[in-house]
Every structure is written in C-alpha cells, then in structure tokens.
C-alpha cells in the first residue's frame, strides 16, 4: 500500500495572542444600539416622506431642498446615513470574517468594503449640507420647473 500523506487539519489551532482590544465588544454594542436608533429614524423618515401631507406625490427636488433647509432634518438624515452605513459595513465585515478563509481574500474584500463605505459616507454627507435644487449654469431642460419661477 502506498503511503498517502494526511492533509493538514483545516482548522489547525493558530489563534493569535489576545490583543486586549475592546474593538469587538464596541462593534457588537454599536450594532445593537444603532439598530434600535435606525428603526426609529427609518420609519420616521418613511412616515414623513411617504405618508404625511400629499405623501409620495410631493417628493421632488423642492421637497428635499425644503426638508434640508431645516437643521433638524439635516441632522436626522445625517444620523441615518452614518448609522446605516456603519451598521451595514460592520455587518459585512463580520460576514467576511466568518466566511472568507484565506487571509488574502479577507484582506482584499475588507479593503473594497471600507473604500466603498468611505466614498458613500463622504458623498452623502456632502450632499446633505450642500444640496442645491437649482444649480446655477445647469441645462434648464434638466431642472425642475419651480427653478424657472424665480
């Protein structure tokens, strides 16, 4: 009988020394707290945008600009953007940690994830604070009709 080598155990013990980092604990806690806050923020958002007044028919550039004229809705939407993005990013991070077996895959997937999250958070934050429904010098055909009123 030929001797075949037994493959190395897939789950060999190679745990790193405890880092004494509390990151995982805070990440876990953040998921719980942001989850609860997001339920309130998102359902509030949906109620105000889709239900109150004329409801979904009222949504256009002007409606959004009107909302973001108030610091209350700016902060509301900013909080929603940041919490949702961080909550989702952390969720994907744990999925990558759980299912990517090779360190290379794990690292590259995380890099893509963090770049994507950063771009969306920065872009979203910028839009919330600098939104202009009628930018000067834009093609009039593309603008909402209320821009021509003034």
């Amino acid at each position, binding site marked *: *009988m030929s*001797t*075949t080598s*037994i493959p190395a*155990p897939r*789950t060999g013990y190679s745990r790193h020394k405890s880092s004494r980092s*509390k990151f995982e*604990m805070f990440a876990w806690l953040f998921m719980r707290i942001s989850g609860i806050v997001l339920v309130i923020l998102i359902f509030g958002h949906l109620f105000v945008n889709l239900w109150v007044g004329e409801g979904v028919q009222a949504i256009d550039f002007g409606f959004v600009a009107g909302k973001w004229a108030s610091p209350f809705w700016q902060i509301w939407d900013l909080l929603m953007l940041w919490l949702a993005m961080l909550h989702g990013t952390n969720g994907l991070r744990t999925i990558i940690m*759980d299912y990517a077996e090779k360190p290379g895959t794990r690292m590259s997937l995380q890099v893509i994830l963090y770049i994507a999250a950063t771009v969306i958070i920065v872009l979203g934050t910028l839009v919330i604070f600098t939104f202009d429904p009628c930018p000067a010098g834009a093609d009039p055909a593309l603008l909402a009709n209320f821009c021509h009123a003034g």
Partner: protein
Amino acid sequence: MSTDTNTPEPASKVELPEHLAGGEGEIPSFDCTIRIARFDPEVDEAPHWEDYQVTMYGTDRVLDALHKIKWEIDGSLSFRRSCAHGVCGSDAMRINGRNRLACKTLLKDLDTNKPITVEAIKGLPLEKDLIVDMEPFFQSYREVMPFLITSGHEPTRERLQSAEQREIFDDTTKCILCASCTSSCPVFWTDGQYFGPAAIVNAHRFIFDSRDEGGDMRLEILNDKEGVWRCRTTFNCTEACPRGIEVTKAIAEVKQAILQRAF
C-alpha cells in the same frame, strides 16, 4: 441464563434470544439503511458514503446499529464510544445532518424509510471514519481555565454556597464536553479559531460561581477577537446539546457580564 447452550452468547442486546424477545411485548423489528461517511486516511482523499442494511429493533439506538455494522458486517468501521449511555460524551456525530449522541438517538425517532446518514462532526480535523481530532476543541477549553480559582489561605471547612447562588450556573454544570455544540456552530466550521460554545459554557460555569475569583481573567480571555463576540446567535449549539443546556443563553450572559465589567 439461556437454556440453549449451543448458540453462542449474543454480542449485544440487539440479538435477544427468541424466548426473551418474543411473547406479548414483542419489540417490533424493521430493516433500515445506515449511510455512513467512511474515511480511511491511508487510502481515501475525502470521505465517501457507504450504505449498510441492518435489521434493528424499536428499542435500538443509532449506536446499536453502528455496533451491529462493526461487529457483523465491517470490522474496520471506527467510531468513539465509552459509556454508551449519554454521560461520557464520546460518540457525538452528525446523524441526519444534526449533531447528536449516537447512544441517545433512537432509530424509531428517525425516518427509517430513508437511509439514516451518519458522519463525523464538522469543523474538527477528520482522522478516520467517525473519529475527529478533538485537540483544537480541548485547547479552547483549557484556555478558559475550567477550574476553581481562589486566593488566600486554604479553607478549614467547605466553601459554602446558597441554593440561589448555585442555581445561577446550574445549567452549565451539565456539560459533558462532547463537542456537539462547538461542531454545530457555523462560525466554527469556517474559521476554527473561534473559542466555540463549549469553551464559553465551561467558562460560564466558573464565572458565575460565587466561590470562584478568576471570573475577571476569564471574561478578559473571552473578550478576545475570537471570543463571545463571534457568536451570531444562530442557536445551533442550543439545538445540538444532548444535555439540553441553553448554550446560546449562557453565551449571552457572558456577553452581558463583559459589558457590565466594561461600563
């Protein structure tokens, strides 16, 4: 004693002599197929399924079927079992896709019209047939220091504890270290560095023991990247535990203890 001295002594209770098995309270017998994931490291690259036809009785367990196969059909079948009564925790295996103790799973409770699949528990290195290397499992177990830690002078009398204090960790004292829970955990399957439910259960047993003083150290160990925070509360461990320990609840209590310690 048996009156018929010509027949050899039966290998197990499986083959009760006619005068004992028969009569009014006859145990119904049935044919069933046991499909076992066989793996011989000297020949095989990967485990493969093999079917065995056996006639079993209504009182038989999966372990009895394995015994019958090993003793009468194929002696090369390898599996662990010691007490065969659900106490030692040796014969945890994946029966019909669920982690069970072979000695506590009655055949009549399974669907005997279809083949009953039996394979080794997942996530631990496979050695042969149904035997896995338990070392990574016990390494995690040792790391949580599963022993009483106290300071100061040796006691001159018993370390007393009230019934209420004992009740807190009663559930987690039941663990028999069979690895059913840890090897049912999807996080452990893909990345075996996670401490796993069994290690956390055994840490819980001492963390919440009023006589123990090492709780802080254990909580620090389980606050690790591979510690309790990797639990995704899928409840596979609770479902798998042959002792009925509420494993996921125990993990949640350790999480809470770490949080209370931090804030």
